[in-house]
């Protein structure tokens, strides 16, 4: 019998080794898997390469993972925001690497990795410093830049509803990068607000088919990054 459920977030992340590449779902606060991130802090894996659109906010979730010195390199499109202070400080001190990737290119690099396509041409960045050193090719009279796939060892994902097969639904704009990351990681770990029986999700409503998911933990009352920041919380 297939049963991808896992009893605790601690067990779900226990085999993430030092040096792993980890995709983290979410766009800013929405969709950020805070409980899985905090479990990864407790677990303590270091020298991580983390892929997310941003670099976290306040001193919780992704920002706390970075602040705890566990991240060697961030791959993201927008590393600063009004409430990000941990990453900017470490970056200016030269203590963390940054690979800046345009948001659409970041999404597509993740998507093609999950789809088995090693690279693609995109018009994004043509004529800019972010295209320097990359292959440029002309199609139908217009220039395009070659971008490689982006894979990961693990993905940490927050979803709304999951079943034991790993079929997932999301909530509103909390979906963002998560369905792509589920496809692109070797091991996809999901925290679900609600775990339902097989058949509990209408097949027409499944956003991420279970084939892309490896582990599911029910976190029925997930904390939200903005709520934690408003309460001036930090982790650990």
């Amino acid at each position: 019998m297939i049963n991808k459920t896992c009893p605790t977030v601690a067990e779900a992340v226990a085999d993430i080794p030092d040096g792993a590449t980890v995709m983290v779902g979410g766009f800013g606060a929405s969709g950020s898997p805070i409980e899985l991130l905090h479990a990864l802090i407790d677990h303590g894996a270091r020298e991580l390469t983390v892929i997310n659109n941003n670099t976290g906010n306040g001193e919780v979730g992704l920002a706390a993972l970075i602040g705890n010195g566990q991240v060697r390199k961030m791959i993201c499109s927008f590393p600063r925001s009004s409430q990000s202070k941990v990453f900017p400080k470490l970056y200016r001190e030269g203590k963390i690497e940054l690979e800046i990737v345009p948001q659409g290119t970041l999404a597509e690099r993740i998507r093609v990795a999950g789809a088995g396509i090693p690279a693609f041409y995109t018009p994004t960045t043509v004529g800019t410093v972010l295209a320097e050193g990359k292959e440029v090719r002309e199609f139908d009279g217009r220039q395009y830049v070659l971008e490689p796939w982006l894979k990961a060892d693990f993905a940490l994902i927050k979803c709304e509803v999951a079943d034991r097969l790993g079929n997932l639904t999301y909530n509103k704009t909390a979906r963002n990068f998560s369905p792509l990351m589920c496809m692109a990681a070797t091991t996809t770990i999901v925290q679900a607000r609600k775990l339902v029986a097989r058949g509990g999700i209408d097949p027409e409503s499944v956003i991420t088919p279970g084939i892309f998911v490896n582990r599911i933990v029910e976190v029925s009352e997930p904390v939200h990054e903005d709520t934690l920041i408003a309460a001036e919380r930090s982790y650990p």
Partner: protein
Amino acid sequence: MSTGWTREQMAARAAQDIPDGSYVNLGIGIPELVAKFVPEGREFIYHTENGMLGMGPPPADDERDLDLMNAGKKYVTALPGASYFHHADSFSMIRGGHIDVCVLGTMQVSANGDIANWSTGAPDAIPAVGGAMDLVQGVKNIFVITQHTTRDGEPKLIEKCAYPLTGVGVVSRIFTDLAVVDITPKGFQVVELAPGIGFDEVQQKTGTAILPPT
């Protein structure tokens, strides 16, 4: 010397040039104000990069949904007929040429339509590109809303951008506090002056030659 258009008036003026039925993406800052000024009788569908078509205005504080944000990480609402999708679909809409108009803020625009709005290139600056480079390449019409000069009075409409480029030759029209300006094969062209603003003032505050209204 007159003060020209306010931020809200610039946004309202830009909204006038968006055709009925357009799919529109609004950048952060003054461009966000465009949504408040949909001209009578027109319907726009707003796209946000983080995965929604049909974005509505901000909710009341006690009606916020923590899973419903825009690309600027601000809380928004979903209008009837809205749809949610993942990031690859969202940027397929952008790169695939399905979005009709994008309104962006900027640091600099050059006379041939180059735009620089993501980094000053300063050694201690943290580069943050977001979706800007995808938008300028993929959206059919790139509108820019910006003050005509910086706070220090330096021109933002110049011959060649000094800051790192976001895109080359992509801007079609600029809405400033002083004028509406088109990018043409001959460079900047004033198409409309703000009330009380003379062409000489616009030329004086532009970093290169600009053509008067015809």
